[in-house]
């Protein structure tokens, strides 16, 4: 996280929200500072969109404190929108208008008077320059998604909130979008809050991530903190090795019977391991560090959470 003295773009503390009997968000905290990209992750129904809509002033929080640039979004939504831009999924656009007409008219709301070059540049940024004057009805889902991103960029906001912006994008477009967001952060110091299912992108893009599950915070921190590197070893006798390690005071975190044992990273080095097992007549066949993907780490967390809850 960046310096707390800087006014945060978003500050959420202990946010609660329910829909009838169903609790959609419980005690969620979030802070997004200028120049920071924060990822919002979680399974369907975890409360991601509710959180984004509360930040946009579309839903009323039922508990806690929510501020965007120091303003309560539900009470003063259009003041928030002077500095923030939200793009919700699925992309809702006027089918009978062209991308250029969308950009021209929507960017003027609030007093901005964009030049044609600015509009063309925004369309080029998302790869839609050659479709600028086609009706939106003729655009593919991915193109509409990109247009929504372009709309969010004119005029340049201080905070960009994107809901599933990579939905419907091909891999090249996803990479391009990643570059755009990084450039916005690096060159313009824009704060970005990004909700996405594409964990690979999140892992490579965000400085901080908030994982929600059933409305609760499952994880909040840099992605790297969620990914724990472990030691994996393969032996000639799985069960005997497990017993030997435990007798040697080494905790076995997980094991795949007949395949591997997993230890905390740094709990022993190769020589120590080989010596310990050799003393029990067990052959060490493989010893290496294992780094799970963010997806694996998330799934592991979700399973663990589910076991705790149920």
């Amino acid at each position, binding site marked *: 996280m960046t310096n707390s003295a800087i006014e945060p773009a978003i500050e959420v503390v202990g946010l609660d929200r329910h829909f009838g009997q169903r609790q959609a968000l419980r005690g969620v905290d979030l802070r997004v500072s200028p120049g920071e990209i924060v990822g919002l992750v979680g399974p369907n129904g975890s409360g991601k969109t509710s959180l984004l809509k509360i930040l946009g002033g579309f839903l*009323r*929080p039922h508990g806690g404190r929510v501020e965007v640039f120091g303003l*309560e979004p*539900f*009470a*003063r*939504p259009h003041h928030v929108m002077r500095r923030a831009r939200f793009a919700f999924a699925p992309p809702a656009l006027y089918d009978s208008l062209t991308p250029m007409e969308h950009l021209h008219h929507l960017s003027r709301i609030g007093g901005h008077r964009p030049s044609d070059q600015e509009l063309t540049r925004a369309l080029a940024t998302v790869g839609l320059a050659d479709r600028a004057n086609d009706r939106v009805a003729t655009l593919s889902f991915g193109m509409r998604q990109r247009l929504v991103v372009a709309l969010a960029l004119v005029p340049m906001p201080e905070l960009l909130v994107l809901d599933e912006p990579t939905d419907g994008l091909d891999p090249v477009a996803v990479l391009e979008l990643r570059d755009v967001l990084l450039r916005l952060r690096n060159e313009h110091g824009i704060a970005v809050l990004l909700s996405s299912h594409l964990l690979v992108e999140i892992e490579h893009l965000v400085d901080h991530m908030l994982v929600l599950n059933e409305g609760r915070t499952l994880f909040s921190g840099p992605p790297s903190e969620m990914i724990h590197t472990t030691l994996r070893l393969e032996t000639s006798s799985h069960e005997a090795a497990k017993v030997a390690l435990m007798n040697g005071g080494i905790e076995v975190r997980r094991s795949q019977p007949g395949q591997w044992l997993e230890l905390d990273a740094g709990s022993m080095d190769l020589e120590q391991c080989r010596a310990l097992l050799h003393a029990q007549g067990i052959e060490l066949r493989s010893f290496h560090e294992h780094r799970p993907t963010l997806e694996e780490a998330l799934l592991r967390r979700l399973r663990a959470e589910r076991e705790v809850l149920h």
Partner: protein
Amino acid sequence: MRRGIGGELILLGLALGFLWYGYGTSSGESAGFELYAPDEGVVRVVSWNVGVSVTDGGVALPPEAEAHVVSALGALAPTVVVLQELRDLDQLERLLDALGDEWRGVLGASYEGRRVAVLAPARALRALRGSAGDGSSLGFRLRLADELRLTGVAIHADALSSRLRNQQVGQAVELVENVDGPVLLAGDLNIDLDLDKRRDLFSDDQYLDVETYNYLAERFVDATLGTGSTAEPDRRLDYVFVSGGWCEVVAAGPWRRQRAPGMDHDPVVADLRPTAAATSR
């Protein structure tokens, strides 16, 4: 956490202001006829359907309501009264007795057990002009002053069919057609043309009633126009028409809250001041 409601309050203020002006200021709607003592020379015409409505139609004036009718007519002190839905000659005689010795009356033929009658002081009521074949109307002649003779027709166009009502009205008009002098046509026409009640917009019945009204309006002045409903529920069925030029309408309209229990019509009053031209003929 609330959003501002300034716009709503402005609109609400506008709504209250507009509604206050619209509803709070005088609507110009007639309160009907208000009882007063007219100047000498004013001809007060009263038309009243005194029958009682029952579920399957109407019945003639019940004897127990006769005193109420006499009382109301006594208060009005009219020059001429046309009544609809009288029972028989005995009933008319009882009414005349109660009104006073100077009153005289004539009774029309029975139309489905109910009759039209004309009542006036003896000095005024001069002659019958005739009666429509079906008993729905009755012609008469009044002498109101030495030089003013008024030919009238009392009518109760009571047929259920608008086509028959059209004929009844036409026959009533024939009774006073080609009369040289002031003419009066009063009674219950059973047609309601209030501008704001287009309930039968697309019906032939309403269409024919409109034709009937316009047939009258082409020939006479509607003396109680714009004075509101005369019968339940909110219908203008009773009219006083006068031929043009012989009088000005001083006051006119239904005299409200005068119904005996069961009655569904108000008495309709028209105070007419004969013009100098009419009295000097």
